[in-house]
């Protein structure tokens, strides 16, 4: 079980939690597990084609998964995934 940190804009979709647990062997599986437990996150994370939306950044611990293996990046027990959309408030 990995820990997924939920950004403020998605918290309403996961019952207000700041972090939730999700299972999977890799980043894609963990995020799809999150989306199946919390269906309201599906459209916010994934495009209609099942790709990760381009405006969502995902980090495995502190590293951007884009410079790792993307959605295929292996996730271990105890790893933390950070979902991070841009914010523009000033």
């Amino acid at each position: 079980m990995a820990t997924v940190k939920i950004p403020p804009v998605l918290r309403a979709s996961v019952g207000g939690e700041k972090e939730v647990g999700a299972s999977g062997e890799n980043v894609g599986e963990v995020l799809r597990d999150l989306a199946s437990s919390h269906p309201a996150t599906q459209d916010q994370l994934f495009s209609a084609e099942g790709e990760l939306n381009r405006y969502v950044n995902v980090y495995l611990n502190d590293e951007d998964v884009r410079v790792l293996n993307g959605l295929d990046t292996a996730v271990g027990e105890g790893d933390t995934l950070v979902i991070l959309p841009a914010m523009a408030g000033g």
Partner: protein
Amino acid sequence: MSPSGAELLRQVKSQIEEVDPSEVNELVGEGVTIVDVRGSEEFATGHIPGAKSVPRGHLETRIESVAPDRSAELILYCASGARSAYAARTLQEDLGYERVRSMTGGITLWKDRGYEVEVPRSLSAEQRERYSRHLLIPEIGVEGQQKLLDAKVLLLGAGGLGSPTALYLAAAGVGTLGIVDDDDVDLSNLQRQVIHSTQRIGIPKVDSAEESIHALNPDVNVVKYQTRIDASNIMEIIEGYDVIVDGVDNFPTRYLLNDASVRLKIPVVSASILGFDGQLSVFKPYEGPCYRCLFREPPPAELAPSCGANGVLGVLPGTMGLLQATEVVKLILEIGEPAIGRLLLYDALGATLTEVKVHRDPDCPICSREPAEIRDEELGVFPDYEAFCAAAG
């Protein structure tokens, strides 16, 4: 019998290594640390180019800030070679410096030989008093304070983030502060926008900000831009500034600023806030990633709420704005490790500050290209730009 002063000096000189000014002259600019141990008033009248000032009275407490490596070569000098001899012995015997030498004849002989002397621009008596706590910090000193006084910083927005940033940069003595904001002060701003005041509701934010800045530090030259930044005016406004502080409240302007600042190679200290959360990073064009490397495109409007619509904890922009001000000062002084290639995430409720890595995107539509290749009509444009702006209203 105790030795006379002259005998003591002879004894000390016999215990240390000395170096002739001719050799020191060869070493200027070669990476050898040269330390002036005279008083700061003497230092201000002229010193060896690149020398660091560590008055002998503060030698033991301050030497490590200019010479952290005890095995590195170190040359000390004073006016005539006496104080630097005593200082050299202290560093060698008491602090374990291995390669310290004292320059014979001091700066008097140096000048007699006709070698170059650097005269630091001086601060006025009032400035010395006002900035005295900066002058005491070896990493800043008169030289650093002068850099701050010479610096030109542009603040995009005199709102939540811009308020504390502007106040502290003004207090720190940043010489020119440009402020871009087209809004008037509103009562609902005052829960967090501390540069404004209840008496100034209804007046333009740029005027209100200028009044507060001048009340704090009349030295600061405030340049007001009472306008909304857009593709037609951005290049003209930002050109010539050393650092830009991004505290704007919308995505189109953030992308526009990114693209224009990459083209002009101006570093941007960027922060954003929402609710109880803040983000901060420094985008230094071509040395680190740019805003587009981090966020390839903005989220759709429903996932991009504004503080106006969703609220923000009043103290949060204070925290984030001062982190921005700190990064600005570091960039100007060229000290420390700016948050380049890192995104800092502050969670006020959890009281945590974490960070993630940000990499340059080799396919970045903007910073993977040379500045001259970035065309006017590309600035601030992203996929679905029209739809985004229409949805955002």
